[in-house]
């Protein structure tokens, strides 16, 4: 169950950017997953080649990704891309990023050796991997902060207002362009954080980009678009139910739970 909690943290980190851009900017950013892996590989590279602490790599990678997000959104805005087109375009981006990763780091499996992967903490009778624990703590902090920011700050309210009725929010003095760029930058930065924890806790291969797409989409939709807190709850719920399925039946059945859940929820409450 605890393992489920930690996996849920990673789902939430991966889903945060997706949920924000989809819910507030109407961009379904499939490239979010490829960006997270690019972040993971960059962490790996910086940590192994320069011997940096993986956590320190965030100082470089997060601002860089923030910029990448802004550039992407600028392109989307210029070309007036709608939801469905955004899905196809970002799929194209995903393929390009995957090829790029494969070209630089080859298709071989890479594993980052770091102290975080080796250390376990004792919580009562349980041993907890430090990397997983940190991923969950980061996910909880970021989702809570994002949720609070959207709910209470002026910018957060402006973002939600723009999502509901863009021109009207614009008429009330919201600078929608800058707000969109900020949100896209943030979402991309979240992908960088997710990338760090992928590098810490998982083996890297370019094809792995696609492995979490389904589960994370399920979490984003079940948690309601643009709702960070809902996303966290849904991620933990899905991960826990997966862990439970694995414990009760064969591990192979795990995906059935999240996807059946996704289908049922889409059919019962289709309005997003």
């Amino acid at each position: 169950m605890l393992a489920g909690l930690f996996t849920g943290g990673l789902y939430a980190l991966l889903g945060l950017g997706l949920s924000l851009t989809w819910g507030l900017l109407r961009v379904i950013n499939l490239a979010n997953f490829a960006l997270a892996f690019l972040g993971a590989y960059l962490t790996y590279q910086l940590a192994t080649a320069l011997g940096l602490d993986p956590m320190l790599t965030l100082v470089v990678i997060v601002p860089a990704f923030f910029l990448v997000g802004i550039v992407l959104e600028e392109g989307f805005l210029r070309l007036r891309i709608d939801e469905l087109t955004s899905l196809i375009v970002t799929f194209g981006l995903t393929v390009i990023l995957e090829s790029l990763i494969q070209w630089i780091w080859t298709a071989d499996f890479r594993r980052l050796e770091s102290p975080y992967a080796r250390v376990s903490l004792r919580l009562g009778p349980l041993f907890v991997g430090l990397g997983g624990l940190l991923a969950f703590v980061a996910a909880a902090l970021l989702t809570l902060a994002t949720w609070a920011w959207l709910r209470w700050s002026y910018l957060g309210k402006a973002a939600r207002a723009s999502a509901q009725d863009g021109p009207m929010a614009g008429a009330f003095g919201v600078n929608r362009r800058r707000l969109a760029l900020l949100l896209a930058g943030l979402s991309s930065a979240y992908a960088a954080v997710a990338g760090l924890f992928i590098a810490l806790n998982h083996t890297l291969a370019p094809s792995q980009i696609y492995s979490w797409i389904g589960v994370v989409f399920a979490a984003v939709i079940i948690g309601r678009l643009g709702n960070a807190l809902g996303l966290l709850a849904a991620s933990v719920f899905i991960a826990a139910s997966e862990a439970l399925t694995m414990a009760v039946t064969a591990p192979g059945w795990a995906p059935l739970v999240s996807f059946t859940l996704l289908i049922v929820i889409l059919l019962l409450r289709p309005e997003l």
Partner: protein
Amino acid sequence: MSTRLSTLGLVVAALVLALVPALKLPAFYESFLYLVFFWISLATSWNILSGYAGYFSFGHAAFFGAGVYTTATLTTAFNVPFLLSLPAAGLVAALLGSVIAAVVFRVRGVRGELFGLLTLAVTFVLSTIALNTRLDGGPGVFLAAVPVPTLLGAPATTLYHLALAVAFLAMFAALAIYRSRWGMGLFAIRDDEDVAEVLGVPTYRYKLVAFALSCFIAGLIGGIHAMFVTYVTVAEIFAVGLAVDAIMMAALGGTRFWYGPALGAVIITTLTQSLTGGESAVLNRALIGAVLIAVIVFLPNGVAGGLQRRFRRAAHASVSIVAAIEAPPSPAREASAPLLGCVDVKKAFRGLQALAGVTLEVRAGEILGLIGPNGSGKSTLINVVSGYYRVDGGRIVLDGRDIARVRAHRIAGLGLARTYQIPRSFHRLSVLDNVALAAMFGGDHGRAAGRSLARSWLAFTGLEARADALPGELNLLERKFLDLARALASEPRLVLLDEVLSGLTPAQMTDALRLVRRIRDRGTTVVFVEHIMRAVLDLADRVVVLSGGQVIAEGLPRQVMRDPDVVRAYLGKAYA
């Protein structure tokens, strides 16, 4: 290109390609062409639902996979001959698709990207089931020992011919649907499904059958492909990437064209095959990603759309429109018998009682004005009568038949049409096709008859010069008249006009008033919702006043306008 010419082209191409193996070319060419056929089948079958009707499915791999595993299981575990397993492969996929469609298409909200995600989830569910049951169980299925019959040459040639046959079938089906009422209905669904339903398009049935056919073809090619690769694994067959490749090809070629997906399939397969090998394979994939982005952004209608635009521009100058002036004749009818009756009709939205028991009667041949303050339930009444909303209680009788719980397209078939307060046109269909669609589904005409009727309706509403324009190019008056022409083309006995006059200049209003009177003179009964009192006084034979979801007055216009209740609730001062 006419249908017959296109069909002929398809048949000739298929026959020529069928002869290729006889040339004894190196095996590479045959397997390359096999892959082309394979992708044509997948992309074209995907397009039949997803391109035409706009329901983007990311789950094509699921139905393809159902076919693959049907053949794999039947031939290895049950010793069924390969050829006999193929129909089963198609049918299993079609059945699966129908069951999913029957459930999914009943939920109004599952459209666009939500439908895409749902089909994506279906892929994962099926792959999990295959992986964990005896269908596959993990290690994959070997089909190398299954004999392939030799029809016209070596076993590989048999597979070549089978794939060619499926590709031909897929393209032929896509063409036939494209040219039919069905195809027109699917296009309308893509642009505005609710309006299509109200115009008489049986949306549920159309989507369901299109989905089933799309799955059938995917399953069929899946069965063949199982034998082509001889070793199938869940990871390779139920791959989301496979669905996305098919989507990409269709989008590249043009989803609005029957030959678009095939064009895309040929381009992409040729690109990948010619660039494969060694170091460049990786960059090659990146190139495809870049091509995909460029096409979506710069050629939203695909390569076929780009080609057709050039072709059209050249042809356009020589075409002139000969418009009929006379409106089509309409059946004569007796006067002042009740045509529509509402008895105690109720409709609530959560706590808000929009219609609190409305009882009224519309007589055949009259013009009835429906007035009342904002929020009094006028538009809700129109939505309820036309079948867009389902009533909570009460009876609605159209010509002796209770239609309160009848689906919108059937109500349309009984002779009811409507316009919208804010005009809603099918924005990717030409003005002519917008109207032709209504004629085809309302009057039960074929495509050609529908178009010629549509021309006369455009003449009737003064839009004949704009027949080839897209609705987006029209001004507000023209779009309102397009809405009207569309409603009239379905040959209704009763037409409901929702604020046709609002937003028009005084001169335009005079035109519109004259038009409404001409509609009635043809024998069509008119109910119109309006706020402009001058028009109501001028036009209506009788007036019904709604307030707070109830009828507070009805009678002759001048009488009603002096009614103290009406003055208090709505007018503020007495008119007339």
